[in-house]
């Protein structure tokens, strides 16, 4: 008798878990995912434009730097007299890596 009641309780618990608990958990994560990962169409366009602008500006400055290097290879050293050595080395490193 007692075992039967226990069995029914376990069965009921399993049904509750399956039909209420599981969908609850799934929908909880679905709603969470839907609110978190949203990059709208305009966001995407904005990111694209920013990336493009950064790349173009980068190219332009690169060509200007090349011209100035051709004119005077030491111009980086002259540009800011108070600048520390490490900063200059960093800038040179940047230049070397493109």
């Amino acid at each position, binding site marked *: 008798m007692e075992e039967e009641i226990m069995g029914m309780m376990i069965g009921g618990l399993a049904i509750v878990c399956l039909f209420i608990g599981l969908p609850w958990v799934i929908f909880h994560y679905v709603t969470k995912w839907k609110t978190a990962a949203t*990059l709208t*169409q305009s*966001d*995407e366009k904005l*990111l*694209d434009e*920013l*990336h493009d602008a*950064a790349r173009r*500006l*980068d190219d332009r*400055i690169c060509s*200007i*730097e090349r011209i*100035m290097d051709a004119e005077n290879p030491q*111009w*980086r050293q*002259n*540009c*800011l*007299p108070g600048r520390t050595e490490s900063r200059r080395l960093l*800038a040179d490193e*940047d230049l070397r890596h493109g």
Partner: protein
Amino acid sequence: MANLQPPSRTRFYRDKRNGKFLGVCSGIADYTGFDVTLVRVVLVAAIIMGSGAPLLLYFIAAFMTPDKPREFALADNEEREFWQNVRASPTRTARDIRSRLRDIDRRLADIESYVTTQNRSLAQEIEQLR
């Protein structure tokens, strides 16, 4: 129904042009940035281990996802990498762009200060010659 949505960079598409069969593997590779061969090997291993169930998932994925829009197929490597980063973390990509713009600003400041100080010294020399 999926084709009615406007083409989006952050959507998952099949990549039939670079695909072997239906393009799901190359779509995954294009979406995440993993190597295509690696994705295929993993899929084959999963099919063998999972006794064919991943094959069903493959067909479901192929049925549900549209093919890659033509305007995205012509992306160069740099652009593809950029969008992979965006899918992984838009915040980090935005931060990357900001740091790039800061770098540009710094370099421009270098150029500006060089040009202005150079002209000033030139003006001083002319002044001295007079």
